[in-house]
């Protein structure tokens, strides 16, 4: 195998080199269940690209570091990848909190930083070297609301959210705006806190307010029991969830009460395109477990980078190459497991052009009998 590729290189006379790409993901700690899924998908994509001849004859090499889901560690790992390993670009970190802390390091060093799982507002406002293909909640939630209104005939909703968590609170803000924009009346707004086990008081109140649906911004720890307890008191309306509810874990944690949950995401296991089928098949074969949304976005992320690298000529001068890659990334068009993809320029707080967000339409799914099915 290596003899063959060596021979091929000799005949074309190309100077083969390794292209080093950093990956800073949470491989331990509370966010590890996401980080490991991301790392697996990245390694799968790199292997596939290298097996198909690499990028213009050069091999991709992934330098993986554990940022433990912590901001401080993400900063350390970014510094190591940039200044010690001298990678060309960095994927990660896993959580939005960490990205807020680590992306400014990449921006200052003028190296492309690419988040595949970070959906909070404002992360790519940090600067023109910041990218992400994770579709933001601000983009997804209005679409989820719209689809539910259309398909389930929803006119008034009750809202429920965790008011002591940045992610669930920001999900609530986005939901609130989407509901106002689409003229949906809110019958009551209820809150809960991390670690609560009993939601019957709120759900009893919601039931008495007679909504057509419940809008729920929660993580799975509270979201799944809320689904169960709602069904227990006979509150059988659709539940519109955010990214925190978009996981197959709901079928386990809310078993028997998981039907009628609406979520939006650029990726769905039910999306039957050739690219997605190839991704799902190869991932399942390699890791003996089904991929999730995080894996799909991470997998596409590597292919997007490869597509950008194909279009440029690397000089070996790292600063110039990083900048060339940045310029190429911004114009990539790619169709992957999550469907057709391009970047969209965003503005910073002062209104000046900054980094790049995903320009992708989410797929809206609804749970039926223990699985997601595509709505519409």
């Amino acid at each position, binding site marked *: 195998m290596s003899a063959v590729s060596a021979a091929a290189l000799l005949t074309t006379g190309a100077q083969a080199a390794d292209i080093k790409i950093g990956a800073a993901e949470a491989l331990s*700690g*509370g966010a*590890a*269940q996401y980080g490991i899924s991301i790392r697996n998908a990245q390694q799968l994509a790199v292997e596939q690209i290298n097996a198909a001849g690499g990028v213009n004859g050069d091999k991709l090499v992934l330098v993986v570091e554990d940022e433990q889901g912590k901001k401080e560690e993400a900063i350390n790992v970014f510094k190591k990848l940039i200044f010690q390993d001298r990678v060309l670009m960095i994927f990660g970190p896993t959580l939005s909190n960490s990205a807020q802390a680590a992306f400014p390091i990449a921006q200052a060093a003028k190296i492309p930083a690419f988040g595949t799982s970070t959906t909070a507002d404002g992360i790519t406002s940090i600067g023109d070297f910041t990218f992400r293909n994770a579709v933001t909640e601000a983009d997804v939630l209005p679409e989820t609301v719209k689809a539910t209104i259309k398909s389930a005939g929803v006119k008034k909703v009750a809202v429920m959210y965790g*008011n002591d968590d940045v992610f669930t609170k920001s999900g609530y803000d986005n939901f609130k705006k989407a509901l106002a924009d689409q003229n949906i009346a809110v019958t009551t707004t*209820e*809150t*809960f*806190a*991390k*670690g*609560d*086990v*009993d939601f*019957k*008081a*709120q759900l*009893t*109140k919601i039931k*008495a307010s007679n909504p057509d649906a419940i809008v729920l911004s929660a993580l*799975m*720890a*509270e979201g*799944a*029991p809320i689904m*169960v307890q709602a069904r*227990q*008191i*006979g509150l059988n309306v659709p539940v519109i969830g955010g990214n925190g509810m978009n996981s197959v*874990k709901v079928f*386990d*944690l*809310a*078993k*028997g009460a998981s039907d009628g949950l609406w979520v939006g995401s650029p990726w769905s296991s039910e999306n039957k395109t050739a690219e997605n089928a190839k991704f799902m098949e190869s991932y399942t074969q390699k890791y003996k477990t089904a991929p999730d949304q995080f894996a799909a976005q991470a997998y596409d992320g590597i292919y997007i980078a490869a597509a950008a690298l194909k279009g440029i000529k690397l000089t070996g001068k790292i600063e110039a190459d990083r900048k060339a890659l940045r310029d190429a990334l911004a114009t990539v068009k790619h169709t992957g497991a999550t469907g057709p993809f391009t970047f969209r320029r965003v503005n910073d707080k002062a209104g000046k052009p900054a980094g790049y967000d995903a320009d992708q339409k989410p797929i809206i799914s609804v749970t039926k009998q223990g699985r997601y099915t595509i709505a519409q």
Partner: protein
Amino acid sequence: MLEQQLFNALSLGCVYALFALGFTLVFGVLGVINLSHGAVFMVGAYAALAAVQNLGFPLWAAVIFAFVIAGCVGALIDVLVLRPLRNRNAPHLIPMIATIGVAIVLNSLAQGIAGAENKRFPTDVLPQESLDFLGIHITVIELGIILLSFLLMVALVLMIGRTQIGRALRAIAESPKAALLLGINVEWLFIITSFVAAGLGGVAGTLVGVYSNALFPLMGQPILHKGIAVIILGGMGDIRGAMLAGLFLGFAEVMSVAYIGSNMRDAVAFGVLFLVLILRPQGLLGRIQERKA
């Protein structure tokens, strides 16, 4: 809606009371605020899950298993952590801080062994039935929590009030030194108390796990705060007071959600609790303890 909310308050209050029973027992006998009680609660829940998933136990047997395992962990904490501190007469704050350390160790161990993600009991071992009574929706699980917490409270009150061990425990609570002079094996009773208290915590953890469908390493943390409030309101060390205060807190929380707003839930509940303590600083059933002054 009011009937349903009253029932909701009863079942939530029983969860708090059940957690607080063991918590207040340890304080009453050992004089220690054991802040590892939340972690022991979690250990009980995971032990019951393992019993169901890996050993094929039915739910009732898993509850007993959780009692025994959590009880053993509690006894171990007493022998390894609290006893050495007693022996060198450490000031009151030291054992309390030590139990925070124990809680951190137990939480990290749980995360290392079982992972950080949520677990739940398999649905097929849980009773799914529910009944509608006067327009109130009652699940069998809620009924079980209510019955079991009253049962355990009665058993505990009888044990303290009517048995030889209970008499000895009351003597220790009055004065460990005098009890020792009377020939009571104080160290042994400390271990038994820690065992029973932690066991009750383990049962509470199992029931909350069954009720909420979510076990995770830090599940004992939020309920620990409520538990502290309950044992203070109940009168430190008072079993019946803990039960009453648990119901009181559940009632205050549910009613503030129903009639004021869920984001004011804890503010109202703890505000009311604060007012009660101004009127009765010794707690609902507590007597002013002169001997400790």
